């Protein structure tokens, strides 16, 4: 009985992944049609990008400060405190920046996309658009998908900048590391192509995955308040898992 239930859950999960894959292809097909709703895409970039700035900047500043504090403490034991800025920058550009931003994005923008699209489904707004011969995939989903892809790299860049600023405040202003040492070691060790650009590629992929999952959960939600609540929760859980799993795969390929 238990085996049968596990098997059923496994096949349900596979079916969901398959449905999400088909949904992705439908979004790709709708993207050319969505270009006529350019204003809507800009509005969504503002909504998922600019409106996420507060949480991204605040978290970036504190994560950078903590990183700087911990690394200065550990590296100073080996007489390498001067490398604090370098390690902070490499950790941020390669992993922490894209991953933490994606997790924050899923919690802030992903949930709002799911709730908004889910409520549109529950209140028949999606059906009304179809009845007015307006494709909801082109008008509602594709602009959000494009906005996620555009906004995420920008958010990652801002997150990284604030995190390095936080690390600089802790290491240089507070703990007394030389300012020139902090910056020169960092710029000498960080490579634009292998470190910064790879991080940008990751952020594009995470932006696509997070908005895909958020839109899919909202679009296919049960049209009830409980259904929207579950869909919102699933967005955070699935986006987090997908981000971390994809990060591992991309790191293995990009290193």
């Amino acid at each position, binding site marked *: 009985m238990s085996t049968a239930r596990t098997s059923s859950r496994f096949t349900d999960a596979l079916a969901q992944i398959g449905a999400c894959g088909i949904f992705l292809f439908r979004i790709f097909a709708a993207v050319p049609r969505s270009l006529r709703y350019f204003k809507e895409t800009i509005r969504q970039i503002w909504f998922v990008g600019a409106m996420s700035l507060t949480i991204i900047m605040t978290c970036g500043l504190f994560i950078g400060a903590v990183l700087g504090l911990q690394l200065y403490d550990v590296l100073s034991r080996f007489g390498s405190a001067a490398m604090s800025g370098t390690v902070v920058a490499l950790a941020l550009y390669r992993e922490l920046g894209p991953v933490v931003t994606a997790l924050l994005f899923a919690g802030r923008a992903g949930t709002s996309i799911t709730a908004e699209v889910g409520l*549109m489904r529950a209140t028949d707004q999606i059906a009304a658009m*179809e009845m*007015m*011969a*307006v*494709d909801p995939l082109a008008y509602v989903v594709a602009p959000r998908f494009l906005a996620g892809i555009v906004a995420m790299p920008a958010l990652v860049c801002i997150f990284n900048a604030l995190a390095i600023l936080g690390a600089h405040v802790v290491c240089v202003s507070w703990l007394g590391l030389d300012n020139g040492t902090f910056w020169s070691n960092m710029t000498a060790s960080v490579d634009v192509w292998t470190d910064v650009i790879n991080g940008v590629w990751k952020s594009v992929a995470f932006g696509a995955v997070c908005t895909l999952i958020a839109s899919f959960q909202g679009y296919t939600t049960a049209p009830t308040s409980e259904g929207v609540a579950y869909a919102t929760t699933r967005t955070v859980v699935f986006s987090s898992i997908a981000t971390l799993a994809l990060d591992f795969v991309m790191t293995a390929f990009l290193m």
Partner: protein
Amino acid sequence: MGYASRMTAPVAHNAEAASADPLIRIRGLSTVLNGKTIFDKVDLDIPRGGVTAVMGPSGTGKTTLMRHITGQLAPDAGEVWVDGRNVVTLDRAALFALREKIGYLFQNSALLTDYSVFENVAFPLRQHLRLPEVVLRNLVLTKLQAVGLRGAVDLMPHELSGGMMRRVALARAIVRDPMLIIYDEPFVGLDPIALNQIVKLIRTLSETLGITSILVAHELSAVRRVADHIYLLAGGKIAAYGTPEELERGDTPWTEQFFTGAADGPVPFQYPAPDYAVELGLAEARR
């Protein structure tokens, strides 16, 4: 003949008699949803130009029928012809082209909550036509004037009452002067003044513009004033068809029960349930 046996043999309906060239022609429509038979080989015609009401007990498939007509839901079997095209076999592009000629008033209004009243009514125009802003504005205001809400043009949907939302949705449904308008429960939540005006509006649209209207409603007095013909759905079949006067004469148990509102009849008031006394534990106590 008992009611149970009558349930299996509803009043015969001669679809051919409805119209020689109907706008909507449905043949052999069969639908099963969640194991429940909604339609069982239903034949139905909606004539061009008039107002046809679809009535019946709750849960009998009136909204489902509208969803079949507009291609939102594919039937399990049968054909649904709208203006000479079988909706069941249309691809998405052809279906959207057909829907551009159909106005649909949803049961729950389905206004776009992020847009103002003006933008809601203007939405179909902005999506499909490239009109100068002045023309578009005048069109929208004309339709809002018709439903009595020209003054509410800048309000947001959450600032409207249920009845006002319905009137805005009605203005949106008629804004492109479609060939067919489907009104799903248009009178719910309307005060008597608004209801009277909406009844007049539906009648006017039909008579002056020749728009075909399908009306799903329960308000007998309003339907009597506005509808040319009534289909009574029950038990997955067409239980009765005719003019309001013909159906009100109630010469079948279906029409008799529906128009008198009796609890006892071919349509059970109670949802199927176990014996009431047994469920309350009274049967045990009696022993």
